[in-house]
């Protein structure tokens, strides 16, 4: 009996690597300390009422951001482990098997559990405020999206200590990801973790499209919307058309593994190439999904910190929308080498080159906005200035890769690795950092320390080039991705060492950001204006942090940069238009169902991972019960009375 338990435990828990034992201890200590702190300060009820059940978009946004920064930490540690292993030829730091797991989890976490939630966090915090709305279109669904993401991410991360991590690359190409080649549970964690959070992403896409199309402030025509709102709309449109493809592709892989179907297997008539075809139909739009909002963030920041209206507003909108459209017609450039012939490759090479054009248009728009502007180099603007050259180089190497014959040389080499890190770090990560610094005062009511922020920026920016420029040359020298070690005779040692140093510089940059946040929480003074950057759009017209109902009376927004124009008028001595009388505000009630239902999904996913139906079926039943309870609940909203609004406003705005 005891032997059996021991045998089970040795398979159930990941064993054998001192790094993992260390992580086990770390995770256990963190969990215990969270429980102890919450219990000691009697904060369980507060946590449940104020956060876990909240349907307030601002709180959901903050939870997204906290979760994504934790994931950034884990993905970053993965990256540094890889760079350490590759620093020198013949390093013995990581086993090849462990290395495979780490590059897999690094990719999945950075794209799906770091970039996506950070993006959703910014959507949540900014969009309703920017369009003058009181919440998103479906607050309940919004909370459900968050918790699905959260529990999906937990399921995926659990594979680290239980059962074993996936190790077939971030897109899990079959046949390697099939049962025949990956018999462990790691691949099942991959499927279910992504599937559960993917449903959440799809719902967020729907939610924000409806919010933007139907809930704008009176007078805000589509062509008067702030650029971040436009970029969110284009990103969400891409989400709703791309994510169902991911859902199907992963479901088919699951059926292969679970029911012995033959979609992508080598035998039974299956075709692994079909998986690659399908996954990139999602995968390519996905990279645009994460980068489009970054373009919107840069547009807001460039305009605010140059004290100028955004140059080429219409061309910007056109560029965003056409990127969102063309992103669906380039997927095959990820597998030029698969052998679909010259016609197919030529078509997709051309579409790939076309999509570079609107991106170029945007770069010029930003440059012309800055031209003759009074630029102030605050943190958000610094990251924007760092982004432009970085993204231009990344885009150029992308065009090089789009040349199909040349791609036969670049394919799966470090050239490719350097290219996509340049657009994803230079574009997405820099963009979201810029957005985080920019809207931080709106979220929490104080700015982040500028001096530490500058340190962080320069470490990241210099570290980036030190890390990834050598990788282009390594790729041209023939170093392929996903190799866990290389010999002295290859001549790759020096460049790899330089690259590793750059990686650690970025790691130190991250530590500076953590220090910056901790320091600023303690020492930065509160912003009482609600408009610390002299902003242009509606989110800056209300106090920071915004009250639960956002706007006491809904604003009128008849022009682009509505708040800026309003301030101009006030400066010229015009009196603000008379406010309509306050009315009771209709608000959604908090609900515990999203949390519980997502947890049930987590339980069901865990059951399927281990093929334990006695866990999976109760999990699915829980999901069904939650849906029915919600369907039968009619009491889902309440009104905030006028008196309470008056009191809140008086407290927030002082005597004004």
């Amino acid at each position, binding site marked *: 009996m005891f032997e059996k338990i021991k045998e089970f435990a040795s398979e159930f828990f990941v064993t054998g690597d001192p790094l993992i034992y260390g992580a086990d201890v770390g995770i256990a200590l963190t969990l215990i300390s969270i429980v102890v702190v919450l219990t000691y300060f009697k904060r369980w009820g507060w946590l449940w009422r104020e956060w876990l059940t909240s349907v307030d978009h601002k709180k959901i946004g903050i939870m997204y951001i906290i979760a994504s920064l934790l994931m950034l930490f884990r993905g970053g540690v993965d990256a540094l482990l890889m760079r350490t292993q590759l620093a020198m030829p013949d390093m013995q730091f990581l086993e090849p098997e462990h290395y495979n797991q780490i590059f897999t989890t690094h990719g999945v976490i950075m794209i799906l559990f770091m970039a996506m939630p950070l993006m959703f966090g910014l959507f949540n915090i900014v969009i309703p405020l920017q369009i003058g709305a009181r919440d998103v279109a*479906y607050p309940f669904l919004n909370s459900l999206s968050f918790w699905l993401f959260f529990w999906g991410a937990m399921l995926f991360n659990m594979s680290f200590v239980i059962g074993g991590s996936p190790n077939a690359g971030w897109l899990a190409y079959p046949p390697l990801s099939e049962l025949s080649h990956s018999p462990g549970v790691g691949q099942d964690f991959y499927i279910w973790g992504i599937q559960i959070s993917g449903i959440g992403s799809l719902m967020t896409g729907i939610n924000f499209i409806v919010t933007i199309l139907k809930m704008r402030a009176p007078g805000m025509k589509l062509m008067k919307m702030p650029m971040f709102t436009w970029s969110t709309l284009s990103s969400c449109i891409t989400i709703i058309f791309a994510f169902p493809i991911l859902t199907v592709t992963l479901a088919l892989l699951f059926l292969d593994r679970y029911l012995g179907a033959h979609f992508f297997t080598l035998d039974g008539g299956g075709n692994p190439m079909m998986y690659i075809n399908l996954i990139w139909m999602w995968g390519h739009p996905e990279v645009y999904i994460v980068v489009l909002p970054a373009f919107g963030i840069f547009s807001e920041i460039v305009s605010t910190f140059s004290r100028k209206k955004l140059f080429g507003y219409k061309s910007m909108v056109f560029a965003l929308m056409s990127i969102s459209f063309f992103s669906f017609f380039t997927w095959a450039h990820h597998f030029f080498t698969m052998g679909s012939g010259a016609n197919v490759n030529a078509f997709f090479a051309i579409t790939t080159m076309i999509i570079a054009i609107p991106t170029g248009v945007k770069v010029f728009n930003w440059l012309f906005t800055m031209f003759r502007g009074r630029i102030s180099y605050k943190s958000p603007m610094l990251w924007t200035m760092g982004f432009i050259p970085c993204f231009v180089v990344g885009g150029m190497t992308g065009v090089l890769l789009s040349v199909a014959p040349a791609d036969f040389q670049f394919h799966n080499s470090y050239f490719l690795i350097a290219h996509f890190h340049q657009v994803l770090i230079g574009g997405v990560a820099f963009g979201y950092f810029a957005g985080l610094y920019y809207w931080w005062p709106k979220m929490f009511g104080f700015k982040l320390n500028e001096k530490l922020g500058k340190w962080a920026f320069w470490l990241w920016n210099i570290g980036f080039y030190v890390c990834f420029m050598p990788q282009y040359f390594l790729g041209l020298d023939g170093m392929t991705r996903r190799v866990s070690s290389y010999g002295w005779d290859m001549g790759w040692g020096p460049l790899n060492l330089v690259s590793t140093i750059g990686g650690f510089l970025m790691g130190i940059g991250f530590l500076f950001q953590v220090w910056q946040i901790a320091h600023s929480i303690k020492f930065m003074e509160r912003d009482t204006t609600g408009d610390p950057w002299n902003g242009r759009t509606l989110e800056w017209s209300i106090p920071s942090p915004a009250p639960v109902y956002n706007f006491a*009376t809904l604003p009128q927004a008849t022009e682009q940069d509505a708040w800026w124009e309003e301030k101009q008028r006030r400066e010229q001595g015009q009196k603000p238009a008379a406010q309509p009388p306050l009315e009771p505000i209709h608000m959604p009630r908090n609900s515990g169902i999203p949390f519980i239902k997502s947890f049930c999904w987590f339980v069901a996913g865990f059951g399927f991972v281990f093929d334990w139906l006695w866990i999976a079926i109760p999990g699915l039943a829980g999901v069904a019960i939650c849906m029915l309870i919600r369907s039968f609940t009619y009491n889902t909203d309440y009104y905030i009375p006028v008196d309470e609004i008056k009191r809140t406003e008086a407290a927030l705005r002082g005597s004004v």
Partner: protein
Amino acid sequence: METTFLGRKRKRLEAAHADIGGHSAGGSHDEHHDHESLKTFGFWIFLITDCILFGTLFATYIVLRGNTNGGPTAEELFQMPGVIASTFILLTSSFTSGLAVLSMNRGNVKGLIGWLAVTALLGASFITLEITEFVHMVQAENATIGTSAFLSAFYTLVGTHGLHVSLGLVWMVALMIQLARHGITAVTKRKVNVISLYWHFLDVVWIFVFTIVYMMGVM
């Protein structure tokens, strides 16, 4: 379906609140309508995403349909009488769900619940036929999901549609109970509109399953 809510609602709203810029923040009756039409629009977008989901399954089926791995082919397997029967059943149920909406617009709760029940019964017989077909294939022809890529794709595509219909049935029953409890309100009205959209959508998907899987299979 949401559109007329929207149009009517806007007119009344503009008439009522023209003095304060055409906007109401208060708890008027209008706002409720507004809220419900918002949900219908979101559901429409969800249906479009479901279109993409089925589109992907169709693409997979079409690419893999020739890979029978020495197992039974479509022509050997499909028995058209059952398929034709289920096609007409589903078509009729799409019509009856429309009649349910008509009853609702006339304010007739009994007619509404009655037509929903007819729709659900038709849906249940569709599912029964489908299950019978699958059981026959597995037991008599030994054609399982693991036999060949063609059959994997077939069972997944048709089964996903069947799963959608089954979920719709559960949902319809839940809705009938709610209608009996609450009658026709803004909320239940929206729910009926939404489920009838869903039901028409499933009929549309079935038309393509019928055409691409069955008719082209036996052609």
